[in-house]
């Protein structure tokens, strides 16, 4: 497997997810909201998995989230990343959960339930922006 994926892979959008990734370039996190039942859905999809209707305009997520769970990869399957590193699943304030990395803190500071907020990271040398999350700034 050596030699494979030495560079960090870029997203490979489908027809359905292209608007999501286009918005990331504008540093906006867009999710679909069902116009009929109000359900926020992710990943992007034709049908509302709750009420089966198709009318779902893109809306901008608040960017507020909490860590639902996370892992620390010590032995990556492919060599593009330097271990140890974290991958988290965060729950957006609107409801959907998504994979991301927690940035701006040490990996041993991450915990389930941790409040986090959206930050975009540009992939080095690429025109791709990934939504990531950092610990929420302390309220004063």
């Amino acid at each position: 497997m050596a030699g494979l994926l030495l560079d960090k892979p870029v997203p490979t959008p489908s027809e359905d997810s292209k608007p999501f990734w286009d918005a990331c370039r504008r540093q906006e996190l867009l999710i679909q909201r069902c116009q009929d039942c109000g359900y926020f859905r992710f990943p992007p999809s034709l049908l509302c998995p709750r009420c089966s209707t198709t009318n779902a305009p893109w809306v901008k997520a608040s960017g507020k989230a909490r860590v639902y769970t996370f892992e620390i990869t010590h032995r990556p399957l492919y060599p593009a990343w330097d271990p140890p590193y974290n991958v988290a699943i965060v729950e957006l304030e609107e409801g959907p959960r998504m994979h991301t990395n927690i940035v701006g803190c040490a990996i041993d500071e991450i915990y389930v339930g941790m409040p986090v907020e959206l930050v975009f990271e540009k992939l080095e040398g690429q025109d791709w922006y990934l939504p990531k999350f950092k610990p929420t700034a302390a309220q004063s």
Partner: protein
Amino acid sequence: MSLRDQCAIVGVGLTKLARKNPDRSSVGFALEGCKQAIEDAGLTKDDVDGLLVVHPSQQGERHGWAGRMADLLGISSDFTATVDCGGATPIVTVQMAAMAIHAGMCKTVLCCYGWQNAPADVPMGLPPGFEFTLPYGEIGATPFMAQVARRHMHEFGTKSMQLGAVAVACRKHACLNPNAQFFGKPMTLEDHQNSRWVVEPLRLFDCCDWTDGGGAVVVTSAERAQDLRHPTVYISGWGQAHGAPLLRPWRNPDSSDWELWSRASETAFKMAGVRRKDVDVCQLYDAFTIVFLLQLEASGFCKVGESGPFVEDGSVELGGEFPCNTAGGLLSEGHTMGFGHVVEAVRQLRRACGERQVKDAKIAYVTGFGGVVNEYPPTFSFSNLILRRE
């Protein structure tokens, strides 16, 4: 009409299992398993008129496995499919075989599996579509099951030592199984706790090794089974459930994210007409130790969240109250995508397991669990079988 006890598993085969076996292709392993299973049943290939193949998803760009396999076996198949539900698939093929026989499409079905991890003729590569996981550095089942384990630990206080109890039980049983990949390699709880992190909170001994190998079972009508050589192993009940519980909290807002699968086990026990306490031996899917815990909960052998304490003190070991994974499971017999579990359940009911035999085993319960976790949303498939002998 209920399909309870209408069909039976009459032949089983499982090849040599090894981390690396460069002598066979995936198709080769499956053919070897098929030959063993047909001979074990005391049949010939001309008795087989249906074929179901577990999709070797790692080689996903290759299509039409089942049709090609039928030709290579030299059988005239009236019912054929390549089935893809990850680790739930071996059990799903047995269910489908029973349904096809009952529907009158065919009389005797081979269900088979073969896996070569490093196929010489297929370059390893990544299929597209991992846009929401791969750019963050998550790929494969291990990190996703680590996400599951972390959440389980957070909600229920599950401990690494409890995961270790599963690994130790499986290894103990593998040491009684000369065909197991880890035969002759005992493991203690201390070994488990000292093993390195792969993806935290999963340690090396929480994870399966790679396994090259194959297997097959022969399914036919219960009526026909009476004329064959082994005690009849009836297919008494089954169920399935599929979904993405960790990513789809809306699916059943009144229940916890972990209860998606419980309906499938209710279905199976109701179909079979047996109670959980009637089960003598279990083969629970265990690609990772955490998956084994989820199977206990999904199957209703303990409440959601209570599987950690359940496995402490050797309860799932041979000699314990609830013997499971008697051949060593995926963790220590070998990762056969769960095919080994089906084969072992049949052998237990035939009472052919020697040192690892559960005395007077009459009812066996088997689960499969498949994660398709790199594409979004990451989903799981759960399948189960209840097998019975007179």
